[in-house]
């Protein structure tokens, strides 16, 4: 097995957008490393470039310069079709607004992902695991926000991805629900050994992570390793 060290590496990654005549540097030489099985929180104010990092890491966008290595593979050299395969087999996404398909039940939303994978987890089993055993046949509109986010997490996990990427997963949820979702993510990391990366502007979440990457003005401001992460229950904001 490949080394646990440097499972994910960002080396001098630049991303520039042209907005009319102005060039915006959404990523201005970003550098960091993440080890396998870590729970990582990327924090920073809105507009700092967090989402750009996540998009590039998740294969939804490409960078202009620099290297991205995931599990020994150079992602930045992937062709569009390879990027799709990368998203398909290696990445699980969780979004702020869940992005569930409205016309599919909870179970079917999970199947949507599992049916395109080589060796997926059973959709029902994973939904039971995230606590939705009773809600398998419900449509998204019949579920609460927290429940919808659980479906989204289940959908991401069903593919057995190498990375679970979460973009403001609690952004649209109330305090308690948000906490329970974070608990689920932390458990997924601790129990299943999944590498979880959470993006948030909420600094209060940071203490629960193994590694905290602070981003400001499209650059990494600091990387803090936390050898003693707190459990979700003890975090307050």
């Amino acid at each position: 097995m490949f080394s646990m060290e440097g499972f994910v590496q960002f080396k001098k990654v630049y991303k520039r957008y042209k907005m009319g005549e102005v060039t915006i540097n959404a990523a201005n030489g970003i550098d960091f490393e993440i080890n396998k099985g870590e729970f990582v929180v990327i924090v920073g104010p809105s507009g700092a470039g967090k989402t750009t990092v996540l998009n590039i890491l998740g294969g939804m966008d490409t960078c202009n310069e620099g290297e991205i290595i995931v599990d020994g593979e150079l992602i930045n050299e992937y062709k569009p079709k390879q990027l799709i395969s990368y998203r398909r087999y290696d990445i699980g996404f969780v979004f702020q607004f869940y992005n569930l398909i409205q016309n599919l039940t909870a179970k079917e939303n999970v199947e949507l992902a599992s049916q395109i994978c080589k060796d997926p987890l059973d959709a029902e089993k994973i939904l039971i695991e995230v606590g939705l055993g009773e809600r398998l046949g419900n449509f998204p509109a019949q579920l609460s926000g927290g429940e919808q986010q659980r479906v989204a997490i289940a959908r991401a996990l069903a593919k057995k991805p190498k990375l679970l990427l979460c973009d403001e997963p609690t952004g649209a949820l109330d305090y308690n629900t948000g906490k329970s979702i974070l608990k689920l993510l932390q458990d997924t990391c601790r129990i299943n050994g999944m590498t979880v990366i959470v993006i948030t502007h909420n600094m209060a979440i940071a203490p629960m992570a193994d590694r905290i990457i602070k981003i400001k003005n499209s650059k990494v401001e600091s990387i803090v390793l936390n050898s003693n992460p707190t459990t979700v229950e003890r975090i307050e904001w």
Partner: protein
Amino acid sequence: MKSAHFKDTLRELWRTRSRFLAIFAIIALGTGFFAGIKVTCPDMKLTADKYFEEYHLMDLKLISTYGLNQDDISAIKGADGIKGIMPAYSIDAIIKTNDEDRVAKIHSISLEKLKSSDNGYINRLKVISGRLPEKSGECVVEKSKIAGRNIELGDKITLNTGKEDKAISDFVNKDTFEIVGYVETPYYLTFEKGTSTLGNGAVSLYVFIPEEDFNMKVFTEAFVTLDNTSGLSAFTENYKSAVAAKKAELEGVAKAKEAQWYVLDRNSNAGYASYEDDTGRVDAIAKIFPVFFFIVAAFVCLTTMTRMVEEQRTQIGTYKALGYGNLAIASKFLIYAAIASVFGSIAGLSGGLKLFPYVIADAYSMLYRVPPIIMPFRIDYVFWITLGALACTSTAVYFACYKELWEHPASLMRPKSPKMGKRVLLERVPFIWSRLNFFSKVTIRNLFRYKKRLIMTLLGVAGCTALMLAGFGLRDGISSIVPKQYGEVFKYNSMIIIDENAKAANKTDAVNILESNKNIKEMLNIRLKNLEAGKNDEWQKINLLIPEDANKIDKFISIHEMASKKPIELTDDGVVIGEKLAKILKVKVGSEITIKEGEFKKVVVKVTAINENYTLHYVYMTPALYEKAFGEKLVLNSILANMQEVSKPAEDKISGDLVDNNAILQVNFTSSNKKSFSDMVNSLNSIVFVMIISAGTLAFVVLYNLTNINITERVREIASIKVLGFYDLEVSKYVFRENIILTLIDICFGLLGGIVLNKFVLQTSETDVVMFGREIYWSSYALSAALTVAFAVFVNIIMHFKLKKISMIESLKSIE
């Protein structure tokens, strides 16, 4: 409207230009089709009216049992309101040209009048090529073929009376004329030139010779134009009543002269009445087809505007919050739709107003000899149709946005909760549902999710298939007439028409020549006569056919029932008539019909059977019945012949052998009939082509628009599955599966609808003397379906590239 608001509208238009184009295109298609077919009838009438006026078509024609002398002419001239009068001669004669005998109508034309342009020159001649006659011995004829060969300018024709006891010199000074020109005249509007007592009664050609070459003592007829009809369209009630009034007056003049006069109006001209009927047929089609296009246009507009209003919820809220009124906000959508409909109408009308009348008139030109169609700019049509399109789109806009306009700005600014997923009925049948794979389940659920769209596609796609099938079916119906009539019904290869007044020796001679020809397998003597048959004052020209031996007819003509193909035997109880004649006269087996010869001789016979027949009306009778009913001995005047080898040389041999025989009037070959008919069918292809293009554009616009809306509506969903790692083709499949299934279902509906539509089209476009084939070929079903699929595939290919371009990042940022 404030200028900032107006700018917003224009930018919106540019931003959503593909959507704008869809509305524009469907409006153009709808208005073009509607207007084009709608004006065809008035355009055709106008063309005819102009022609009648310019060429001084008679209003009335007077004939008398003893002819008309100078006194009679003066008496007519003295009547009130006579604009012009032209006394004239005409005779039926047999003309010989290119070794062929034909029955022709010979008319006089005054050489002085040709040069003048006073009102005394009626039924004027239009020169197609060559020139008008300038001196005695010259003639002009209609451009026509005889036995497959053109009559050439410079050819000579020889006249004879066709009767042994009458010399041609009793009628004309000369018997040979040189053809110096081809002409047309509104007096003969169609290829149908009436009947004659000569030959088999069918007139093949009309000829105009100088008046001075006639040596008859009295005029045979007088043509009259009237003052009170000037400026009136011949197709109006005003014209008809004006003519009827004068007709009564002239009949009064006739009574004073104590002679038997007949005053005839234009309806006595061959083909005149059917022209009006035919323009009416186009109008009947105009009542259905274009309305359908209009409905589709309204629906496209409705779905598009609904989507647009949905997208602009937040903006509507913003405008409301800024204090804009409902009308001001709605005006954005109204203007958007208005620009699309006005420009769409302009584009559609400028194309449709020319294209459709032209194509339809062109197809009719195989039946009528009228000048090229006049297509004036009809401002009233343009105005009302554009207004109609505007009303249509405005109504659509109203329905699209009235709900949003009554909401509070705050609720408009909140995103609309997405439409909830629903289970479909099929899920309650676990036996089937559990067997479906995941993607089929999604597809089925999506199919029922958007009902408005379901109806739209049904209208657009099924409509497209139905239109195409109707078009192809029309072609099938017409093109199958020939193989059916000359293959399944008429089996003989040749019909030889004999002059019944010829000397007996000559007749025997002719039969001997035929019998000695080894290529002739078998022959049957018949009597064939052009008569009229009718019931309840509905009269139709018929060919009465009496075989010498009723038992032998089946080798030459298969007389059988249409549906069952069961052979019918001729009996002495009554006659057998064709399906179409039975339909027009509204008679059934067992009913009685009247057959009349001239005005005076009428016979009533029973209909014993109805047979399959496609062209003209044939009535079959046994010799015994004929002799009993008509009270005269049967005189045979034609021979049906079957040939061993059917080829051009074989046919030439037969006609060549018979050339010098005086008893032979005509030798017809089935093969040349077939050919001239298939030429006619070809010109119909243009109508079919126009139908297919219209139908295809319809399907394309509807599918493109719907798919476009579908994609913008589901852009988050599509982005989500892209993030999940669906490959491009899988994404397209995920979205298009429904399209494809819908298209396939709609094609089935379309084919069913097409059968109904085709029936309607056939029935309205059939003329009295023709019955179209009733069956649609399998190839037409296949072709309509395949073309619809092709259009759908084309749309999906374009949309595939659009799907590829959807950005995951943009779409997933936040709820729109």
